[in-house]
């Protein structure tokens, strides 16, 4: 799950990172900092997994007023 500050929301952490990258000589127009939440689910049904993840995001993992999210599903690596 990728959680990021919505466009237009002041992101001071992103600004600090942006300034630091510029200081290092990188040509950065803008930096925004979000967070990644890795979850391992019991289900192997992608539809059910997605529905459950959306509920998790709505209830706890994001604050819809200030954050948006993207869900990416991956098959577990088999040993």
């Amino acid at each position, binding site marked *: 799950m990728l959680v990021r500050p919505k466009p237009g929301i002041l992101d001071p*952490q992103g600004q600090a990172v942006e300034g630091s990258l510029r200081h290092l000589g990188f040509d950065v127009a803008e930096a925004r900092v979000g967070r990644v939440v890795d979850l391992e689910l019991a289900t192997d049904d992608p539809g059910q997994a997605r529905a459950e993840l959306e509920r998790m995001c709505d209830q706890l993992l994001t604050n819809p*007023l200030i954050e948006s999210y993207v869900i990416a599903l991956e098959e577990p690596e088999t040993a």
Partner: protein
Amino acid sequence: MTDGVPRPLVPVVVFPGSNDDRDAATALQRLGADAPRVWHTEDELPAGTAAVVLPGGFSYGDYLRCGAIARFSPIMAAVGRFAAEGGLVLGICNGFQILTEAGLLPGALRPNASLRFVCRDVPLVVERTDLPFTTRCEPGRELTIPVKHGDGCWFADAELLAGLEAAGQVVFRYRPGTNPNGAVGDVAGVCNADGNVLGLMPHPEHAVDDLLGSTDGAQILGSLVDSARLSLAAAV
């Protein structure tokens, strides 16, 4: 303290990581309330609760987002029911964050624009003196109360802010030019539509004695105790 005047029951909720619960309870006691501290795993508020305070601190280590995990504590369901029945709820700093995360107050609290923890006295403009939390405040008189937070940047989008301004839900504002955290509209505290739930980032419980440099916080907490006493009288 004062003979014959009933002491309303104003519990202070303690979450793992709360650290201003003792100051809040002490201030409320001095202002005439009975202020037991109530652990967050309780399913109910104490019988006879006349108002409840969610104190400052760093519940659950501020993990994920400030207040995001504490809002699911068992006691918060009881606080939600109490608020829905018109009960008085005051959230201070982390308590304010918890109330916004719980959807009991509008907006959200984000990291300070400076990315620095701020700890200093701020001058507060009181926009409403007719609320149960501000009856002791005088119109036009600023309060001096300290803030101490890393995530006090209150945010609402333009539409939400305009609606709150029009509805009179912006209760406290940092005096223009003194905004310590980048909050939109210089907002320091907001209430719900019914005016019985209030949250603010400054700490009134740290401004109740001359030794602390200001007694202005007693105007807010004293108003709450007065109102809690009135609700007690009305219920009898």
